[in-house]
């Protein structure tokens, strides 16, 4: 933990408040952080512990997780915890908001594209192997056609599986930030800022294009194909084709009312591309859209850590 105390606000002569910064890694090695002003340190510690509890319950890379067991028993109605129920509902809401562009049912397509283990293991496996995978397109069905959610139960149509990664991080950042009154919870780029920040001027958030914005109550998320890539593919599946999206968006940052909406819209822009994506996101509540384009982003050929 780093304890930073800014000397004095640069504008208006405001006295800065103590800022506690916690960095940690979760969600497959993604850099996460909690920045909080004048917090109860016990509350911050609880927040960090809950990130790990969340990951343990909802990771798809552990067969013992609740999500893995839910996917494995697709077909009949299944009892689910309040947490999984909330995330499944959030996935349905994300699909509706995005007109199906953000579809949690892409998991079989994601696996077919090669993302069948943690990104570090995918890159290690593909290092030196054939660059192109013989992937079979698996366009997912509309999520609302295969997933039902009720109070304490859910039902996934047989033959389907869901991945709650992006939606989960956005949802979690929102819930945890609400626990701290003046803080930023950043979960691998999906972040929620609440409060006036350490100097009373808002929280300064850096975006993918190098620019910064000051926010008081907002979410931000960055998506794109510049992160989780491997030889022959990347993790953003276009549900219209079942293949990794053919997009010119290396990274896109979206600022919206909360982290979940920002995450959904950022992923949508990344899939739709730099021409159709930004107006699509703005029509759905994006306050800011910043795109970093690349026509020929190289696929990493060597093992490296997550971006």
């Amino acid at each position, binding site marked *: 933990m780093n304890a930073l105390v800014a000397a004095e606000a640069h504008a208006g002569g405001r006295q800065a408040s103590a800022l506690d910064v916690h960095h940690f890694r979760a969600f497959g090695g993604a850099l996460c952080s909690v920045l909080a002003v004048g917090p109860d340190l016990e509350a911050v510690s609880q927040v960090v512990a809950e990130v*790990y*509890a969340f990951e343990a319950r909802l990771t798809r890379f552990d067969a013992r997780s609740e999500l893995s067991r839910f996917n494995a028993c697709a077909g009949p109605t299944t009892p689910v915890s*309040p947490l999984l129920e909330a995330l499944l509902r959030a996935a349905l809401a994300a699909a509706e908001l995005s007109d199906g562009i953000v579809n949690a049912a892409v998991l079989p397509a994601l696996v077919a594209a090669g993302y069948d283990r943690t990104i570090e293991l995918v890159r290690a496996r593909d290092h030196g192997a054939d660059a192109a995978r013989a992937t079979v397109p698996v366009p997912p069905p509309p999520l609302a056609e295969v997933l039902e959610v009720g109070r304490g139960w859910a039902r996934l149509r047989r033959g389907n599986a869901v991945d709650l990664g992006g939606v989960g991080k956005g949802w979690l950042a929102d819930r945890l930030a609400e626990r701290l009154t003046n803080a930023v919870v950043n979960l691998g780029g999906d972040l929620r800022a609440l409060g006036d920040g350490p100097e009373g001027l808002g929280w300064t958030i850096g975006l993918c294009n190098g620019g*910064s914005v000051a926010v008081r109550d907002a979410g931000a998320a960055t998506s794109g194909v510049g992160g989780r890539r491997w030889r022959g593919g990347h993790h953003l599946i276009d549900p219209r084709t079942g293949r990794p999206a053919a997009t010119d968006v290396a990274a896109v940052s979206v600022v919206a009312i909360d982290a*979940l909406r920002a995450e959904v819209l950022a992923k949508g822009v990344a899939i739709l591309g730099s021409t159709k994506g930004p107006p699509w996101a703005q029509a759905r509540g994006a306050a*800011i859209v910043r795109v970093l384009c690349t026509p020929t982003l190289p696929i990493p050929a060597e093992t490296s850590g997550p971006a």
Partner: protein
Amino acid sequence: MAVGPGALKLAAGLGTAAVIGVSAAVVAADAKPAGAPLKPPVNGVSAAAAQPNELASAGTLSIPVTPVCQRSASGSGVAAAAATARPTTAAAAALDPAVAAALQQLKTATTAQQRQAVMAALTPDQRMQVTAYVAAHRASRNPNPSAPKGSCRGVSSTGATGSSTVAPSVVDAGPAAPLAVSAVS
């Protein structure tokens, strides 16, 4: 010809009775609109209120949403229908007893310190379950807290859906060094 007071009183009474009688006849003969009741029914139950409600069954006060909002806020397709329905086959998951007890304690907690004490006694996983449960109840009570009044669309972080939101507080920060960075992961 002189008229006595008694005769005048009698004439006035007869005149009044005649006016009242004519008025009553006119009102009785007036056609009333067939489709407009003079007052709304007071014993009937509205269709929305008569529908099954999960919160009501859970003993929680709830205000039924209007049919229009219910249709829009709960999405479409089978998932939307299931979102407000009870399980049809298997039983729903039973709450962890510690989570259930914490939810009861949170209902009666009146200060932030009391709520924090309740949460502190739980494991991180149990705190997540409580957080999710509370968020779900909040979303079901208010399907779209971030949308302007009158809108049935919007997506909130609790999972409600729609297209309209309140704009976030955000301004360009220029060259200021960021405290946090949203980067692709």
